[in-house]
């Protein structure tokens, strides 16, 4: 399941992010790459333990918690502290798959990367190239969203970022471990939740069918969730 969620950050927040990032110093993006992906990774990142990454990361986590579609689609258990990258002209990130397990530096916490997220911080018209290309069994999907929009996709997929040929692309990216490991089960819960939200709006949340469906939703989570 690949889901695009619009306006996770508003334009004011984006302006603040851009300002903070402009003032920060950047390092080679290979510091957080695995052995295969470091061979194909060619971009810059904010140092993950730096003040800028930490502050902006907190803002991202706050925005995610306030976004019902994100919570419903991801059912997050643990979210990796968001990282920030910058692709200038000539930068790209070749075909790779994200590491399965990520330790959070400075903590004993490890997460299994079930889902990968990219939160776009540059407007699409401010750069050429830089599409996130995600491959699945029938082909590939290209993602290039407006600043503030987010794409969520299973970490199992091979993906790459096309070379930037004009301007610069800044984004936040991170992984999460979902309470629901299985992609099919998680997609099913998302469908069920979307149907319940819509029916509650149409029939009233107290409608017996809505109450029953809500019970089913929670009981499915009880059966499947790791908490």
């Amino acid at each position, binding site marked *: 399941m690949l889901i695009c969620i619009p306006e996770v950050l508003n334009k004011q927040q984006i302006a603040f992010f851009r300002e903070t990032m402009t003032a920060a110093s950047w390092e080679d993006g290979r510091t957080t790459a695995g052995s295969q992906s470091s061979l194909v990774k060619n971009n810059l990142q904010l140092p993950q333990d730096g003040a800028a990454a930490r502050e902006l990361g907190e803002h991202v986590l706050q925005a995610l918690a306030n976004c019902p579609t994100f919570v419903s689609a991801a059912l997050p258990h643990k979210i990796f502290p968001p990282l920030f990258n910058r692709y200038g002209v000539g930068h790209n990130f070749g075909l790779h798959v994200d590491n399965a397990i990520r330790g959070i530096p400075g903590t004993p916490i490890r997460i299994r990367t079930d889902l990968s997220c990219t939160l776009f911080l540059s407007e699409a018209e401010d750069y050429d190239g830089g599409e996130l290309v995600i491959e699945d069994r029938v082909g590939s999907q290209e993602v290039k969203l407006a600043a503030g929009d987010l794409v969520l996709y299973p970490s199992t997929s091979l993906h790459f970022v096309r070379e930037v040929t004009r301007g610069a692309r800044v984004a936040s990216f991170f992984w999460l471990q979902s309470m629901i490991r299985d992609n*099919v*089960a998680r997609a099913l819960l998302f*469908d*069920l939740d979307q*149907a319940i939200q*819509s*029916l509650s709006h149409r029939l009233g949340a107290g409608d017996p069918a809505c109450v029953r469906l809500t019970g*089913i939703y929670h009981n499915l989570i009880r*059966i499947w969730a790791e908490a």
Partner: protein
Amino acid sequence: MLAHIPGALGKAEVLRLREALAGALWEDGASSGGASKTAKRNSQLPFDSELSRKLGAAVASALLATPAFVAAAIPLRIFPPLFERYEVGDRYDPHVDNAVRGDVITGARIRVDLSATLLLSEPSEYDGGRLVVEDIFGSREFKPQAGDVVLFSAGSLNMVTPVTRGERLSTFIWVQSMIQSDEARDLICDLDAALQDLSPRIDGDDPDMRKLSTVYHNLIRIWGEA
């Protein structure tokens, strides 16, 4: 799972079965008692008799034509239904049904996920003879009308209290479900009930209904054995 399904068999069909049972030969019910032989005191139609098979087949097809039974049991295989008679003093003490049953005639085995009792006597015809089933929310008593079915998880302790007047005729049925887990099967049954509730009110082609029916079928795909 614990469900009381009224009218699985129509009154006319109940009468037809009772007429067929009128001249039958009964044997000691302990023969099919499994691990619970001493707990069981009643009579039973010999399970390999032609009459038992014929009437059992009629009961099984009636159940499969009952939407509430199919929705709750999601049946994969039904063991040939057995017929039993409780006279005054007969009873079946608390017991759990065997997990696996083999049919001596066909050799076919089923995993017993669900047990069901279908009453052939009206409650006014006997005293006592209540079916008591223990489930996760406590114990429940049933004295259903003739033609009604009580369906319960085969893992539940169950008993029939002593009959103190008259005669209680019933048939009991073991089912292997496509969904082994009670929790999962109950959830799918609830989802079906919600869909039945919504379907007269919302068009089947509605996007929300399509989502819910996709969820229903995909859950069966995830959990089902066929």
